[in-house]
């Protein structure tokens, strides 16, 4: 990001104002990847909603079997992890690798909460004999949430890699693109869940 920013003016106090950059934080390649992921999920969300049109009673009946409390915990966990990641990025921009690593480890811990709670949900449903072929609602529920679950796992792997590098003093004020890149991916994972949660668990 810093390559795209230009110092545009100086305030009366002497602080430099920086012109808005042309590109989002992080490596541009991750944003192309994020766009592709967002579009794929948009198709899935639309497919769920339009399929529901022809099976409203079935979707409402089986939506009621889902654990909304678990979904609440997971949503709060992902939002909290995103906040922690934002704090990690701020620390990295200030050149504080130790703080950056701590915030990122805290974010990973929130990711672990999500994984544990979601796994418990899957265990409950699979234990009750639910599968992809049980009915259309469960087919969408399992495939949509599991696809997202895989993104959470990948996001955690990325955050761990970035945290380890930060722990080893691998970033600086001048070069912290890796932190911003990992953060952007993790925020995307959060963004997707923010639509998935009301769509699958609440809207009826």
């Amino acid at each position: 990001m810093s390559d795209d920013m230009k110092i545009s003016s100086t305030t009366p106090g002497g602080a430099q104002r920086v012109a808005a950059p042309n590109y989002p934080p992080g490596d541009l390649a991750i944003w192309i990847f994020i766009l592709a992921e967002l579009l794929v999920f948009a198709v899935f969300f639309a497919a769920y909603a339009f399929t529901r049109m022809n099976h409203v009673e079935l979707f409402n009946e089986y939506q009621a079997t889902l654990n909304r409390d678990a979904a609440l915990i997971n949503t709060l966990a992902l939002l909290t992890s995103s906040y922690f990641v934002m704090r990690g990025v701020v620390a990295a921009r200030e050149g504080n690798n130790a703080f950056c690593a701590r915030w990122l480890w805290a974010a990973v811990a929130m990711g672990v909460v999500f994984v544990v709670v979601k796994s418990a949900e899957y265990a409950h449903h699979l234990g009750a004999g639910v599968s992809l072929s049980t009915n259309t609602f469960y087919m969408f529920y399992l495939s949509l949430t599991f696809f997202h679950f895989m993104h959470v796992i990948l996001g955690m792997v990325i955050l761990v890699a970035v945290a380890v590098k930060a722990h080893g003093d691998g970033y600086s004020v001048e070069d912290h693109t890796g932190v911003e890149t990992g953060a952007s991916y993790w925020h995307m994972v959060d963004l997707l869940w923010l639509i998935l949660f009301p769509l699958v668990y609440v809207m009826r």
Partner: protein
Amino acid sequence: MNGIEPTRQLIRPCTLVYAVLMLLTVATWGIGRAGLSGLGVSLTVLAFAMFKGHLIGDWFMGLRGVRGIWRWVVVLWLLIPGGLISLAFFLSYRS
């Protein structure tokens, strides 16, 4: 995050954004817990989600301080599933 403001000044607004995100999430859960349904309720919950997504994009992903099309990329994306989901729910209640 914003390229204009000093980085540390982002913490306070981002913390406020985090609080709003948590409140809207609990409100969404409360609506589900109360068993509320209907087109108006569904669209309200969806609007909460889209607003939350907008906040994530602007403040956490740092798009608020970016120029050009990248500034709006998350908002534009939110309009795609948001619009299609709204249409599907509208049609399901109309039929």
